[in-house]
């Protein structure tokens, strides 16, 4: 096993007297990392448990020997040589890799959603875990949004709110009982919901009809103001479908300019609301 001390010994032979003198006049007892760095401006520096070496201040022959005798040896023994920031991020990711129950969740979706959605879901589960442990998730969320600009942000948010643990599984249970069910149809429905945010409202047992009418009216007002296309209302289970029907009646009574398109089954419904002429 390579250690910082064993690498230091090799460096002593490569760099020479000046480096040996530097090491002997400094406390190297706790050194655990050797960092190529220009911080501080010196050729060598010891900070905390780092030995910092500025490679641009070494001769070409010394750099060649470092590459051949140290770096190649590390790589051959399956050590990863990484940027400092990547090490920290990778360590945080490692600590928050999906648990066995999350792995079962990914397994559940692996044959039901597209490969891109499953990959984004895996990353989002890690983001969710990191957030719950108080770790900064900014870089990870940005990476998800960058890789999947159409749905990344929404999928990540929905994962953090446990929609993939609950709602989308229930949706599958519900849809799979329908006569004309297909995995493709389920996939399409999930994608419609994910990409429909923020203009989507979920109707569940939480909140009264009045609460939901207020929520929907407020989102509709925003839609109208910004000229955006549509609002989706989504409900699962018969009682919530009936609740949604009641909500839609009140919405329509309050504003007849709204067009409502229904995709309705006994135990699920998606209503698409649009303003006439938009």
């Amino acid at each position, binding site marked *: 096993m390579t250690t910082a001390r064993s690498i230091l010994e090799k460096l002593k032979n490569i760099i020479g007297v000046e480096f040996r003198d530097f090491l002997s006049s400094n406390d190297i007892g706790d050194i655990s990392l050797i960092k190529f760095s*220009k911080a501080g401006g010196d050729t060598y520096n010891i900070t905390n448990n780092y030995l910092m070496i500025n490679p641009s201040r070494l001769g070409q022959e010394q750099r060649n020997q470092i590459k051949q005798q140290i770096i190649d040896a590390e790589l051959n*023994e399956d050590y990863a040589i*990484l940027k400092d920031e990547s090490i920290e991020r990778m360590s945080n990711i490692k600590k928050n890799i999906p648990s066995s129950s999350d792995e079962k969740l990914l397994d559940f979706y692996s044959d039901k959603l597209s490969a891109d959605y499953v990959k984004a879901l895996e990353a989002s589960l890690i983001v969710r875990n990191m957030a719950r442990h108080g770790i900064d998730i900014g870089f990870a969320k940005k990476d998800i949004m960058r890789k999947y600009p159409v749905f990344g942000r929404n999928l990540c948010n929905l994962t953090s709110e446990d929609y993939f643990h609950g709602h989308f599984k229930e949706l599958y249970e519900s849809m799979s009982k329908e006569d004309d069910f297909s995995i493709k149809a389920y996939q399409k429905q999930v994608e419609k919901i994910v990409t429909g945010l923020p203009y989507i409202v979920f109707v569940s047992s939480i909140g009264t009809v009045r609460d939901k009418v207020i929520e929907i009216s407020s989102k509709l007002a925003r839609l109208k103001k910004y000229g955006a296309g549509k609002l989706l209302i989504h409900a699962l289970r018969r009682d919530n479908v009936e609740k949604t029907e009641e909500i839609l009646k009140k919405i329509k009574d309050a504003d007849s300019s709204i067009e409502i398109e229904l995709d309705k089954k006994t135990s699920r419904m998606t209503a698409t609301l649009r303003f006439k002429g938009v």
Partner: protein
Amino acid sequence: MKKSCIVFDEATKADVLDLFGKSIDNEGFIVEKEDASQRVLTKDGEEILSEEWGGVIKGSEAFVKSDTFSLIELAKKLE
């Protein structure tokens, strides 16, 4: 796969790349020093901008990116 006790920071990227016989072209991509028209690829066949370069692992000196998805794959391999 294990983490080496050798790391590098942002400021020394060009020097570390030079150790591997690579440099950075005028569009910011990592290229072969001997042939600047040849861009270095990840094992998935992606070109690498120096700003998104995360390090090197075994496998004919496989260059890895520093984005979350690349780090997830590395984390899974890490002992």
